[in-house]
């Protein structure tokens, strides 16, 4: 929300430098998103008087104005009387009026944020010199008015600075809306001013008109209407006033300045005042055209009826959308037709325009929860919704409406009728809280009187009874319900920064390792030690990426409120996100790299109690571009496998790599989608203890083309939670004191798989009870033979004695017997 510092200063002193102020706002009120110094935008504009004004000799529509700038502008061509010549095309340019002069060298404010702001100079227009220009509302960025130049409407003299006369030498502070979610009052200038006052330890005093006890307005005209509220639960208060014979006209420059400073456009005096009051108090006000309401209903008495929409009813909103409200939306209708989406936005049927003569103003209180649903459903996000969504005070409709009427009546119109429909209003209750209770919780040492002062500054009602404070929050605070709320209030306004910092004295226990975090940390260390880079990509993917990577989009959750329209699917696999980053990094000049991510995936087909199961995966890609891929021997598949061995470490033996094309993924949608990334002939399904751990290999050619992946590219994605199944604890055997014997054996086998052979040998060696170590040495197929010779080196030792030749012989005989029986292997 944009806050004008000059506007704030109308209600409280600010005795801080801008820097200090921003620091305090950040620490005690809410995060500042950005600040804009308007004084630069409005620099150098001088209030000047048109002393003489006559037609341009060579142009029908132009006039020559001789202006008096009080001698303020330096280095400017002046006539004998000290006047400056400016050429102007505005109809209202005439002798005697005060205007805003943009002298040569100044920047046209409306172009201030443009790439190339328009800087004025002295130039000839049809042969006559124009020194800068006389500004219109549009050029000053105050309104859309370009028909004429602005006329100064406040007390001023030639030479006065335009910006300071109209408070445009302002600092605009944009505070994040979310910081005020629980503070409806802070969506108004008054609320923020009160806070800034409290933060500085200054007593704030609300304007007299902003009070529960407001003086009842007396109608002077006659403009009858009736209010019927059929939604008393949702709309606890509906206050409305009619004003007859109002003149619709442009707002004063002062009003235009208020609105433009916080980024609102001036429309006309009625709409502007309702906006002004909303920005000031956080109470939105809506204006209806009385005569349009009357016309809709014919002869009946004008009525505003609060009700739900009936089936089939439609309304065209001021934003141009036509909607069919749901049966729960809160509506305002005339006797026969919907005229407003309550609390959100008006309809076009009864809006105020230039021809309006009689109006009804509404200040109501709308249920924040229902309004939020309405706003989300119809995509209506107005300033009114932002404010009502925070739960505005029911009390303030009357004081705010009364002041609005008074402001309008200052220029024209008569009050016709004022109506206030409500049941018993919600009141803040008094809370009793002791100074001790507060000090204990804050770790502070404040006296009860100090505490009382802190909250009195922001207009809480406080009674002190020794050390007990009896506190009642003012009506605009709808967030103070329990004693802890008072503690917070005092802590914040006193400043948390001033609290003593002490470490709590507690005995603590080390936390138990959480399985998932533990395995993630191991994976992270293993892969980064191997030189791979950890990435953190979004959990969301685009439809396009899902399609490029052959992912079945039907099983992906679609987001209703995506971060950006492109990122609207929850990912079912992580690998596509990594693949998407490969080309960009090659382009940055990295010719080879490993990327990995520890992420979570979800899909619609794996749920528990309607909630998606969360699967933790580790995903990896290795890529080397064409310049360096000759550094690698063998297929890219093996490069991925090298990294895989890093993360499984000693468990490598337990892994099995099986055919991807014949694998059955019917019960595992994650693997099914994952498999579509890989090319079956160059990839494998990784099994661990009969569980499908994941897939390793190279990618489909179409994916490589679409994502511009180099030839040498491979990777894997594994279910990280299954990796915890692998036993990582090492078992120790005492070392043998006796010498190891080393023997090479070669077995000739026909079609026995290699791993089976290794396992059989290992099993037999283990059964001997000796220490052993088994290494593969060679694999050789003699010419024209269908047998393969597999050679291993075996190291053997006993813990009891040095092994004799006879011992070794016995071991070999045992091996030979077992292998020929089980695998028809013959030692050669």
């Amino acid at each position: 929300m944009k806050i004008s510092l000059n506007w704030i200063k109308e209600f409280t002193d600010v005795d801080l430098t801008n820097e200090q102020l921003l620091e305090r706002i950040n620490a005690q009120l809410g995060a500042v998103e950005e600040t804009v110094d308007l004084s630069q935008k409005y620099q150098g504009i001088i209030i000047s008087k048109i002393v003489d004004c006559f037609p341009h000799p060579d142009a029908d529509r132009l006039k020559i104005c001789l202006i008096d700038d009080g001698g303020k502008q330096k280095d400017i061509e002046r006539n004998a009387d000290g006047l400056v010549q400016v050429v102007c095309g505005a109809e209202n340019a005439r002798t005697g009026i005060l205007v805003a002069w943009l002298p040569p060298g100044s920047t046209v404010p409306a172009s201030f944020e443009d790439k190339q702001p328009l800087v004025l100079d002295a130039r000839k227009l049809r042969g006559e010199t124009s020194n800068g220009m006389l500004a219109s509302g549009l050029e000053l960025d105050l309104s859309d008015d370009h028909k004429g130049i602005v006329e100064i409407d406040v007390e001023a003299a030639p030479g006065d600075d335009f910006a300071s006369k109209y408070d445009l030498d302002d600092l605009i502070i944009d505070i994040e809306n979310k910081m005020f979610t629980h503070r409806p009052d802070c969506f108004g200038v008054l609320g923020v001013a009160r806070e800034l006052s409290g933060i500085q330890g200054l007593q704030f005093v609300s304007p007299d008109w902003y009070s529960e006890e407001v003086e009842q307005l007396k109608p002077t005209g006659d403009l009858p209407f009736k209010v019927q509220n059929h939604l008393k639960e949702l709309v606890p208060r509906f206050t409305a006033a009619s004003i007859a014979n109002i003149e619709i006209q442009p707002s004063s420059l002062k009003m235009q300045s208020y609105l433009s400073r916080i980024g609102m456009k001036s429309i006309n005096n009625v709409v502007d005042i309702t906006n002004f009051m909303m920005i000031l108090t956080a109470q939105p006000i809506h204006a209806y055209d009385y005569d349009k309401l009357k016309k809709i209903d014919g002869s009946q008495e004008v009525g505003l009826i609060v009700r739900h929409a009936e089936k089939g009813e439609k309304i065209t909103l001021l934003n141009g959308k036509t909607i069919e409200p749901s049966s729960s939306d809160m509506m305002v209708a005339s006797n026969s037709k919907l005229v407003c989406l309550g609390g959100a936005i008006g309809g076009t049927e009864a809006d105020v325009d230039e021809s309006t003569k009689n109006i009804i103003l509404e200040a109501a209180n709308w249920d924040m929860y229902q309004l939020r649903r309405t706003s989300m459903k119809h995509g209506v996000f107005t300033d009114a919704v932002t404010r009502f969504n925070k739960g505005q005070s029911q009390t303030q409709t009357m004081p705010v409406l009364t002041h609005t009427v008074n402001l309008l009546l200052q220029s024209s119109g008569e009050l016709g009728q004022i109506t206030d429909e409500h049941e018993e209003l919600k009141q803040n209750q008094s809370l009793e809280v002791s100074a001790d209770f507060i000090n204990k919780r804050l770790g502070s040492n404040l006296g009860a009187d100090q505490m009382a002062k802190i909250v009195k500054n922001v207009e809480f009602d406080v009674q002190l009874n020794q050390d007990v404070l009896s506190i009642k929050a003012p009506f605009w605070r709808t967030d103070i319900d329990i004693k802890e709320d008072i503690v917070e209030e005092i802590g914040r306004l006193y400043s948390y920064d001033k609290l003593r910092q002490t470490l709590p004295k507690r005995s603590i226990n080390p936390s138990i390792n959480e399985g998932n975090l533990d395995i993630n940390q191991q994976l992270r260390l293993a892969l980064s030690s191997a030189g791979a880079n950890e990435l953190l990509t979004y959990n969301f993917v685009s439809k396009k990426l899902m399609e490029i990577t052959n992912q079945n989009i039907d099983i992906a959750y679609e987001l209703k409120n995506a971060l950006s329209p492109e990122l609207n699917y929850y990912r079912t696999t992580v690998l596509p996100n990594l693949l998407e980053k490969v080309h960009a990094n090659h382009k940055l000049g990295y010719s080879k790299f490993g990327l990995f991510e520890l992420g979570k995936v979800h899909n619609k087909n794996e749920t528990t109690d309607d909630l998606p199961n969360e699967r933790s995966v580790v995903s990896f890609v290795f890529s080397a571009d064409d310049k360096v891929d000759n550094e690698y021997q063998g297929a890219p598949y093996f490069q991925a496998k090298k990294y895989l061995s890093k993360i499984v470490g000693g468990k490598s033996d337990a892994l099995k790599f099986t055919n991807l094309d014949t694998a059955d993924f019917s019960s595992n949608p994650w693997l099914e989608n994952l498999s579509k990334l890989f090319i079956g002939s160059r990839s494998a399904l990784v099994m661990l203890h009969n569980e499908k751990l994941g897939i390793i290999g190279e990618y489909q050619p179409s994916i490589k083309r679409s994502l511009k992946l180099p030839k040498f590219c491979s990777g894997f994605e594994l279910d990280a939670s299954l990796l915890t199944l692998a036993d990582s604890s090492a078992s120790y055997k005492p070392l043998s004191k006796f010498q190891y014997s080393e023997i090479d054996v070669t077995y000739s086998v026909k079609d026995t798989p290699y791993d089976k052979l290794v396992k059989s040998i290992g099993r037999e060696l283990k059964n001997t009870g000796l220490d052993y170590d088994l290494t593969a040495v060679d694999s050789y197929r003699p010419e024209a033979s269908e047998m393969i010779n597999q050679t291993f080196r075996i190291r053997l030792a006993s813990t009891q004695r040095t092994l004799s030749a006879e011992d070794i012989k016995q071991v070999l005989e045992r091996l030979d017997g077992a292998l020929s029986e089980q695998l028809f292997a013959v030692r050669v």
Partner: protein
Amino acid sequence: MGMIHPNVLREAGVDPEVYTGFAWGVGLDRLVMMKNNIEDVRHFHSGNLSFLKQFGARR
């Protein structure tokens, strides 16, 4: 920043008459941004190695 609501403590089986606490939200990425003067939060998710390689894993 504020206090932990007594109802939250109660739901967690903690007696709010005995225990109290402060509650606030800290974005880990924001803290890292402050520490290292990182100007744009989107860098974290960019997958850009020029960015990532400036931050090694601590062991």
